[in-house]
């Protein structure tokens, strides 16, 4: 068990790296402050498809193709494809995966799927079970809205704690190489449920999960927040970000200025998206776009990506269940 640290953290001594990656976002995200960090900005969020579900599948496929192209890899050489999305039975991922011959592992972690996939991919590489693993997630505003919320054109007034699902996809190829950003640790989180039931404020529900995973990761690795140049949480949004800071400062953590949040930052304030972005693609495009660019340009040496997920369904909300949340962390180094 030499690859385990403490109770929840895995270390990867074989140095799995990100060989290539590709991020695609919709037009709204393309007008946000991080537009330059993304590889491709779609001209519209339909792409001539009959349904938004088809569009979501298509952008995941586009991102997979481009990722493979960038590292000149054939799909036959990929030993595992790990993917997930927000829809029931993760249909966008399974339909996209049906195009490719790689063994497919479909996972669901809501908005935390990306870090879960990356952690699992690195684990497969560390265990000598694979040489190349493709990971990817996608989400689409319209598909998430109709599954979890209301029809697009309904007369709903959004409030400041509402999230806006990111339209986009992020895919990365993990493998071994001499250079490139490396995955050093993964901390898989436990389910944290503080009994919150308000599906209109998922950020506050997810903050304790992010807190629990960050705290455990730092304890397992004997590090502090200061050891990271940036700790990028997934999609806590403006409310959740505030709650996470409160929780960390209550326990006496220092270095809170290292905290950044993908959901809060992907849209500008003028874009009227409530608390910010969410969705499986949010941390995928921010992690593979923003965080990776920081590493590549030398602005950061070490980044902790903490993807958070609210594991609720449209049914459990109506049945009055609380929102179980989870957070997974992966540490990246230049």
């Amino acid at each position, binding site marked *: 068990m030499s690859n385990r640290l403490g109770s929840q953290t895995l270390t990867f001594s074989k140095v799995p790296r990100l060989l290539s990656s590709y991020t695609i976002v919709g037009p709204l995200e393309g007008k946000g402050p991080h537009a330059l960090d993304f590889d491709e900005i779609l001209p519209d969020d339909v792409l001539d498809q009959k349904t938004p579900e088809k569009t979501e599948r298509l952008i995941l496929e586009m991102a997979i193709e481009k990722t493979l192209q960038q590292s000149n890899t054939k799909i036959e050489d990929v030993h595992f494809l790990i993917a997930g999305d927000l829809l029931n039975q993760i249909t966008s991922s399974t339909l996209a995966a049906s195009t490719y011959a790689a063994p497919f592992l479909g996972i669901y972690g809501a908005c935390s799927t990306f870090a879960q996939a990356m952690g699992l991919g690195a684990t497969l590489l560390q265990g000598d079970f694979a040489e190349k693993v493709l990971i990817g997630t996608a989400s689409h*505003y*319209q598909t998430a809205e109709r599954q979890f919320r209301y*029809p*697009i*054109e309904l*007369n*709903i007034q959004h409030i400041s704690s509402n999230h806006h699902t990111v339209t986009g996809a992020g895919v990365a190829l993990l493998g071994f190489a001499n250079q490139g950003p490396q995955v050093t640790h993964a901390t898989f989180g436990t389910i944290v449920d503080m009994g919150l039931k308000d599906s209109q404020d998922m950020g506050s529900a997810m903050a304790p999960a992010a807190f629990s995973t960050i705290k455990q990761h730092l304890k397992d690795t004997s590090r502090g927040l200061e050891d990271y140049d940036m700790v990028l949480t997934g999609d806590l949004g403006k409310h959740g970000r505030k709650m996470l800071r409160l929780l960390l400062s209550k326990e006496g953590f220092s270095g809170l200025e290292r905290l950044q949040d993908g959901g809060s930052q992907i849209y500008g304030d003028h874009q009227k998206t409530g608390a910010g972005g969410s969705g499986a693609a949010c941390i995928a495009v921010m992690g593979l776009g923003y965080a990776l660019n920081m590493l590549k340009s030398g602005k950061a040496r070490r980044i902790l990506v903490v993807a958070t997920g609210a594991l609720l369904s449209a049914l459990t909300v109506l049945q009055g269940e609380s929102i179980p949340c989870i957070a997974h962390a992966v540490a990246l180094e230049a």
Partner: protein
Amino acid sequence: MEYIIAFLVGGAICAIGQLIIDTTKCSNAHLLVGLVCLGAVLSGLGIYEPFQEFAGAGALVPVMGFGSSITKGMLSELERLGWEGLFTGAFEITGLGLAAGIVFSSIWALLRKPQK
């Protein structure tokens, strides 16, 4: 003058609705159901008709008017037909609006897509 009254009364009903949404846990659905029931009850008590006489569209257009029309239809059908009126009356007045909603909604659903 009647335009000003319609504006003030209709606006006031909506503003109170907004206050309920913002200060309680009620969603839009709860609010609309509550207002429809209120309209139906007020009509049964004979209060809604004089109110509508005064406020015109200010009382007709808010969804309370829909509830009041249901009760009104039931009462008039009850007089005309006897107890069957309790069942035929619901759509006596509101049927037109519902049918219009169904027809127009279907047409638009075939012609247009939701957009963002």
